[in-house]
């Protein structure tokens, strides 16, 4: 759980850095060139496959964990309290399933469309071949206020999932030390807020600039 989680957290950073190129005012040229690189470089391909695998693994691990733990608890208390200081820890499976649903829709909207070749093509000066114009469907989706809200809310779920997930991964690997715990918690909070915020800015920015 922790190792797959850490891999996914590293991926989010790369994914965000790549996507920030959507903010450039060049009709998506930079973004499409980047997309081409990400879909054609053999090393990146290998990483993509590990990523698909990790997403599936992390989901299965999470569902299995929640299932075993529900059985282990048996019945619930009549009066419930939440005294631990990691509030979202109790809702990881719920948040996780919501994020999984988001992921399926998200991948259907962009990843699958590209794989099916349902994305328009463009030519760029200095290049012989065509480029898939992923920028156009992205702008299309983010011009719809419904999707902008959907993406933003999903990012809030991801943030909540990460607030617990970040420091939890360290504890599971046995990294708990008085000297560093504060630092891990703080970096965790920063990461859990900044990364989803960065993602959420994209649909909002595109929606506003397209309107």
């Amino acid at each position, binding site marked *: 759980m922790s190792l797959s989680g850490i891999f996914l957290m590293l991926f989010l950073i790369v994914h965000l850095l790549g996507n920030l190129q959507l903010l450039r005012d060049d009709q998506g040229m930079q973004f499409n060139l980047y997309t081409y690189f990400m879909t054609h470089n053999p090393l990146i391909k290998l990483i993509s496959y590990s990523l698909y695998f990790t997403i599936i693994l992390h989901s299965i691990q999470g569902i299995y*964990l929640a299932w*075993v*733990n529900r059985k282990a608890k048996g019945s619930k*208390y009549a009066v419930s309290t939440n005294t*631990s200081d990691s509030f979202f820890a109790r809702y990881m499976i719920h948040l996780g399933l919501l994020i999984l649903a988001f992921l399926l829709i998200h991948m259907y909207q962009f990843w699958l469309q590209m794989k099916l070749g349902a994305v328009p093509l463009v030519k760029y000066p200095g290049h012989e071949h065509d480029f898939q114009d992923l920028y156009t469907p992205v702008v299309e989706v983010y011009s719809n206020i419904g999707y902008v809200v959907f993406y933003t809310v999903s990012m809030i779920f991801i943030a909540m999932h990460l607030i617990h997930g970040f420091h*939890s991964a360290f*504890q599971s690997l*046995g990294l708990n030390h008085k000297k560093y715990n504060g630092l891990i918690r703080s970096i965790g909070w920063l990461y859990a807020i900044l990364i989803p915020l960065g993602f959420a800015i994209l649909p909002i920015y595109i929606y506003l600039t397209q309107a």
Partner: protein
Amino acid sequence: MKLNLKIWRQKNKESKGAFEKYEVLVNEHMSFLEMLDVLNEQLIDSKKDPVAFDHDCREGICGACSMVINGRPHGPNGGTTTCQLHMRYFKNGDDIVIEPFRARAFPVIKDLVVDRSAFDRIIQAGGFISVNTGQAQDGNAIPVSREQSSKSFDAAACIGCGACVAACPNGSAMLFTAAKISHLGLLPQGKVEHLRRTQDMVKQMDAEGFGFCSNIGACEAECPKEISLENIARMNRALIQASLTSE
């Protein structure tokens, strides 16, 4: 003061059980268990079945007094066992809900009493050190650093009460097992078998049907002896090391 109690009553392991309401008059100097004694006197006087609850030392060291009071194992005060909880922390007219510890590995035997023998079996699986019997050794023959002995002692404060399991939404026994593993593994006498002990005790813990740890931290928050999550991290480290190096 007058209290309105709602207590879980269950005849035996097999029966379903339900809450029943009682009223009791007590004074603020009583402990929580003495309050239950007063209630039981009343019940016996009126020829009713008294409420079964576990207790022994009544001074916070045996770990017997298991119950969940208003949703919290051992009641509202941090670092306190039920027997050390006094009625002055409640007010006249308070409603108090009392339930047994809940976890699949801790089945209810009767009313508030649960079967915690799973903990004994975890200890039997590795909670010991192997030494030859015979003459006792010179106490100072093996040097122990001050830091290690304090940490070991903090872990040894675990009274095996099971509040950690009761508090955990996953019914996990990681804090208890980790406390026992740290207590022995931090000292030179216990270090020798540390990795094997960790594996054996964790294996037994899983076999007993306790849940997996997802680092919620409710155990640490509810532990009457304030055992730290640091012990769980130490156990995780030993587990990783053991899985990489064991044959």
